[in-house]
């Protein structure tokens, strides 16, 4: 309990953290592992992973009187990762079956390749709990070498069948499809078998599952069958529809199936609805298409649905017109957004620009863009000028997709006297289209009196190919408006315009907000020629610029960088030290091993994280003991980086000889 006692918990946490650097550290950690406050316990677990040995922690696993201590020890061993593996493996073979069971579970969570071979014999363990834990662990670790044994277990001890089916699904090996299909008639096992077949996604499972689906009326199983069928269909894009031998082509079953799928398409359960959609498309249940298209505005559904409809392109093209005239605007919009229209659809789609529903009009703009229909340019330009915000935005996107010549329609929008908003919309189209049309007008607008127009025109010029526009853009660096100057810097970087480097360097003495962007730009352009200027600037620049100077120098990697970074690492500001350590470990060679090892002991987790990565980058066997310490770091991210680094060392089995 906390609350009035909150200050007590904070005090205990402070005591624990102080003890981490004292002689009584281990005892304080053990006490912290059973603290009443989750905050203190979590900190103690992190410290236990770092400082207690796997042998000490494993003793707590055997303590069945103290579940809190046992759970905390389990969490700490999981965090120790490769460091704990050898001892955990020995525990799995020990006489205490309860401890062996926990050890298997921990190995599963650690998920290190080196433990797989040790787990395989446990599948036949006399203790069924241990055998089940091993089944689950090998499934979790996706161990294909376990597949033959797991298949054997499908018809073995009923206690293990369920876990074996689940594990085979997780592993995803097609060898399991036949044996799993043979167990479909087992009522107890059926749902898990179906889920496993869906996870494996092999086409051989499709027709048997479909035949079950059309005849099943048990709802949880039927939904599970649908999910599996959809997963297989999505997993096999080469399948052009459902094979003719499947029962669902029989007229007497299609009505019932259509009703079932139609009901799912209007549900909030996105996964089931999506699965229903997959089958509607593949089984050509066309009468359910309006319900499917009406769902299309759901976030995340758009790209998926387009892909699905491309699979039945021929039929979709033949039958889209009634859908475009459907009374429900969601269906009309969905049709425009997702149906792969063929040649000749342009006029009917363009007519939808007059629809009374704004979403349909916006969808029509996008459809015309996809069609690249030049005859729609004038109508789209009108939508750009006078549509609401959404329509105007979609019209801009569509215009940008049309053949280049179509953008001649924008000439009136760039004439003198036209309103600023209209000009900005037209410039946005030219920018998106990377078009060089209306060049004269664009260049004139780059010198307009209105900063927003100058900035937009510079963006258009920034998309011009080659280097012809570079000089016009560089002129933007002298703009009187700071925002325009900053935008110009960004445009030049995106163009990788190294010609601009001298101009950027020349502006460095500027004290306005521009310099922050200049420094970053020089870094991103890898302008090594500017390195000495940046180093000279470092001493006098404000803190936020000094940080960016270090980042820029890291990107440039000039001669003498390591010496410079060593000095920065002595600074007190933590953000400066972080960016310096980043650069240091990237540039360091074998001679810097000791310096990186020192960083591995830093009090800041970001610096230690960089050190872990840097030790992996050097790939020296001498780095291994330091990485094994970092792999138990109190900060899980550092531990993960260290484990990945261990994998890159010369030794191929981290942890086993620790």
């Amino acid at each position: 309990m906390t609350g009035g006692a909150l200050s007590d918990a904070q005090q205990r946490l402070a005591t624990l953290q102080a003890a981490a650097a004292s002689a009584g550290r281990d005892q304080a950690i053990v006490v912290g592992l059973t603290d009443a406050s989750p905050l203190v316990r979590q900190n103690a677990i992190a410290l236990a992973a770092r400082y207690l040995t796997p042998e000490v922690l494993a003793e707590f696993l055997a303590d069945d009187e103290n579940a809190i201590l046992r759970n905390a020890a389990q969490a700490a061993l999981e965090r120790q990762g490769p460091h704990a593996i050898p001892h955990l493996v020995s525990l799995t073979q020990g006489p205490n079956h309860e401890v062996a069971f926990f050890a298997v579970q921990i190995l599963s969570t650690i998920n290190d390749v080196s433990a797989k071979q040790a787990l395989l014999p446990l599948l036949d363990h006399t203790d069924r709990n241990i055998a089940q834990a091993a089944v689950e662990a090998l499934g979790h670790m996706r161990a294909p070498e376990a597949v033959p044994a797991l298949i054997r277990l499908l018809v073995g001890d009923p206690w293990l069948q369920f876990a074996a089916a689940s594990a085979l699904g997780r592993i995803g090996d097609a060898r399991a499809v036949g044996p799993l299909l043979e167990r479909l008639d087992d009522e107890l096992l059926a749902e898990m078998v179906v889920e496993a077949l869906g996870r494996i996604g092999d086409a051989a499972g499709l027709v048997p599952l479909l035949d079950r689906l059309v005849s099943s009326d048990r709802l949880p199983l039927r939904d599970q069958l649908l999910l599996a069928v959809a997963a297989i269909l999505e997993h096999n894009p080469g399948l052009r529809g459902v094979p003719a031998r499947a029962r669902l082509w029989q007229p007497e079953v299609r009505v019932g199936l259509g009703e079932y799928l139609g009901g799912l398409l209007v549900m909030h359960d996105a996964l089931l609805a999506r699965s229903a959609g997959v089958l509607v498309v593949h089984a050509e249940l066309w009468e359910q298409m309006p319900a499917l298209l009406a769902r299309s505005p759901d976030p995340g559904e758009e790209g998926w649905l387009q892909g699905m409809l491309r699979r039945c392109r021929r039929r979709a093209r033949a039958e889209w017109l009634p859908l475009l005239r459907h009374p429900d605007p969601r269906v009309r919009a969905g049709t425009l957004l997702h149906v792969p229209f063929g040649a000749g659809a342009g006029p009917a789609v363009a007519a939808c620009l007059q629809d009374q529903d704004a979403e349909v009009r916006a969808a029509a703009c996008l459809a015309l863009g996809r069609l690249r229909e030049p005859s729609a340019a004038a109508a789209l330009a009108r939508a750009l000028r006078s549509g609401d915000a959404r329509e105007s935005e979609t019209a801009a996107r569509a215009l940008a997709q049309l053949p280049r010549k179509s953008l001649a329609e924008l000439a009136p929008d760039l004439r003198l006297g036209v309103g600023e908003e209209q000009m900005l919309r037209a410039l946005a189209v030219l920018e998106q289209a990377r078009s060089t049309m209306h060049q004269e007008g664009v260049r004139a607008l780059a010198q307009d009196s209105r900063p927003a127009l100058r900035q937009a025109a510079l963006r258009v010029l920034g998309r011009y190919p080659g280097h012809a526009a570079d000089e016009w853009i560089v002129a933007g660096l002298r703009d009187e408006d700071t925002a325009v100057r900053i935008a110009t810097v960004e445009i030049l970087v995106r163009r990788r315009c190294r010609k601009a480097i001298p101009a950027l360097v020349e502006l460095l003495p500027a004290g306005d907000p521009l310099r922050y962007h200049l420094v970053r730009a020089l870094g991103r352009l890898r302008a090594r020629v500017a390195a000495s200027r940046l180093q000279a600037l470092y001493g006098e620049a404000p803190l936020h610029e000094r940080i960016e100077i270090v980042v820029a120098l890291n990107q440039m990697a000039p001669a003498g960088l390591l010496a410079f970074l060593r000095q920065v690492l002595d600074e007190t500001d933590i953000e400066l030290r972080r960016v310096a350590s980043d650069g240091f470990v990237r540039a360091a060679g074998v001679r810097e091993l000791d310096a990186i090892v020192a960083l591995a002991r830093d009090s800041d987790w970001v610096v230690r994280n960089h050190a872990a990565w840097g030790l992996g980058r050097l790939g020296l066997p001498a780095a291994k003991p330091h990485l094994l310490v970092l792999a138990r770091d109190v900060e899980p991210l550092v531990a993960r980086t260290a484990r990945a680094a261990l994998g890159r060392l010369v030794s191929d089995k981290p942890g086993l000889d620790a």
Partner: protein
Amino acid sequence: MNGQFAEEEWKLLLDLVSREFGLVFQDSRRRHLESRLTPRLRVLGLESFGAYYRYLARHPERGAELRELARIVTNNETYFFREAHHFDLLVQHVVPQLFVRGQPGSLRVLSAGCSSGDEAYSIVIALQGALLDRAGLDWHIDACDLNPARITQAREGLYEAGSLRACDELGRSAHFSAQGERFRLRPEHRRGTSFFEANLAVAGLKLPAAPYHVIFCRNVLIYFSEEAFHRTLSHFHRTLVAGGYLFLGHAESLIGRRSDFQPVRLSNSIVYRKQDTGA
């Protein structure tokens, strides 16, 4: 810091959000948050989340950007009379325990994490609906939120139809006037309300009308880190009168987490009452 340090940048950013606002984001919301932050990177001319983190950590204009960040990470939706039984409990159980009907009294309420003001105004409507103003009760409702845009909207009192989803047709016409496709709260329901920007998770937060008889803080604490949760609850404990009430959302509970608030069953709901710990 890019490439292999993408996870590091993300953690730095989340730690900063937790430190500044007490909010915790699960990994499952990462993509959602990234897509909401990306426009900020464009506005600031930054190329990565690492650069954004450094801006937030050390740039001289970080204060303004932290406000923008607050707006982005707290854009939680609410509506009038959400968990409507709480307002019934307030007028039928809590107020009668604290004040004698017919005698003058002044009720002080805090709506913490008020978003666009729906909750604070719902309280006023509930108090007025029970004719408590005519029975001698006066009130002052402080309402605060981290998100300055939401405070502006609350002061404006103009709502989309979605904010009125729990109001029937009668309630809509009684408490709002239509303004195009939106709805404006009638001026009489603003009585006694005061909106201001505040970060509940910071130490030393000053609340103008404290001590309060009642605090509403619903569906806010679920987003808080453990540390910010306890800091905020301790703050609520200090700013409630003895025996004052705390209303939390239905998914939030203090049972087993705080000993300084006593769970009280009112009708079929659990609310919390300040325990005097003597601390």
